[in-house]
């Protein structure tokens, strides 16, 4: 007895789709890991130029060298 075509099609689809249907919590963790990696990359790329999230350090440095402050409020997307 041969397997009906619709069942074969469904089975093929399941084999193709299964690897991408991970549990939702694993998706969230991977998304967060990517977001953290991105933030760290941005921070490292700009390390020479920007002080990150440390207003006191910036105020101290500005007071020491007589420069004005540029304070940017911008989240890491």
């Amino acid at each position, binding site marked *: 007895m041969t397997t009906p075509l619709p069942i074969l099609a469904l089975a093929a689809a399941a084999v193709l789709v299964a690897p991408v249907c991970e549990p939702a919590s694993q998706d969230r963790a991977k998304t967060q890991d990517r977001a953290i990696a991105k933030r760290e990359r941005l921070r490292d*790329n700009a390390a020479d130029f920007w002080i990150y999230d440390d207003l006191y350090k910036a105020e*101290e440095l500005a007071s020491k060298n007589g420069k004005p402050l540029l304070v*940017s409020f911008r989240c890491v997307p």
Partner: protein
Amino acid sequence: MAVPADGELQELLDRFVCVRIVQMHGVDLAKFAFDGSLTWAIFLMNSDGTIYARYGSRSGLGDQSAREISLAGFKKTLAGALALHARYANDKQAVGKLLAGKTKGVRPPWPTPDEIPTLASNPRFNQPFLGLAGRHNGCIHCHMVPVNELQSLRAAKKPMADRLFSPFPMPNQIGFRMDPDQAATVLRVFGDSIASRSGLKPGDRVLRIDGQPILSTADIQWVLHNADDADELAVEVARGDGAEPTRLTLELPDGWRMRIGEWRFINKSLLMQTLGFNVNVMPPRQARRYGLAGKLAMFVDRTRRDLRKKTGLGNRDVIVAIDGKRDRMTLAGLTAYVFRNKPKGSKLKVTIMEIRDRFPRPESTVEVEVR
């Protein structure tokens, strides 16, 4: 803007200590007051807290979001701030007095976002921010500040000032648009507006408003944000080659904030959370076409699914009355009305006019539960 490629910009930025704040935990809201609906805000200041200029403005969402800012304009604002910094170093007393209004404004309802009750009691946000290497939980975003301030004031049944519903008004909301490529030059003045009645003209270089030196559109927003509900603001502009500044007066009528249209993300968010739908105000030309000129006319923008099922209220429905009131209402006005008059559990009557083939049709009224 991580590392600028523009040489002139780089040169200007090298003369500042640049710090990027990526979340709002612990931020002094009296020192750093800005429009929470922005995605980017800049303060140019002295290390002692004296503010020289603000930068960062937007007048809409999507494509409109970048109409008000440009690198060219930003460089001019930076240059202006550096000039003020040099003057402040030479004469702290006099320049400090000049900048007092730029530095200190209306006191916020709570000193830091962490103390706003609806954030302080939320286990997702009342934990230490884990820093850039940590998980995203606990990150307080800029827009959460004004939203939670209003929610907390409402929950505590405390008064809610008009400026909380219509914060940091843009100049175009009172009838003039600034040139984004200049520091503080008027680009256009709209007819029959607060600005046109003051005598402002295109090409005017705004020197001071209410005694404060103006170096950007954001500086103008700051002055308007701190203005009273009925106020007169002295304006000094440089016009043409005139040696003497021209003096004008911006007359802000009683309740001006609630009458100006705006796009604020926070109002839409508050309406969605409280009513289950939010709205866009109908443009005047369209309102005239539907016989709604000068009257309440709003499109439903988004509706919560369960509300749509229960009431039939759907996207693009035209609202013509709220609790029987048909006077023209802005987004801020609607939010203020709901927050001040409709406690949790009460009902809001929403009257919809059916529009088919661009002709007005019968009206129907639904009741929406207020959360």
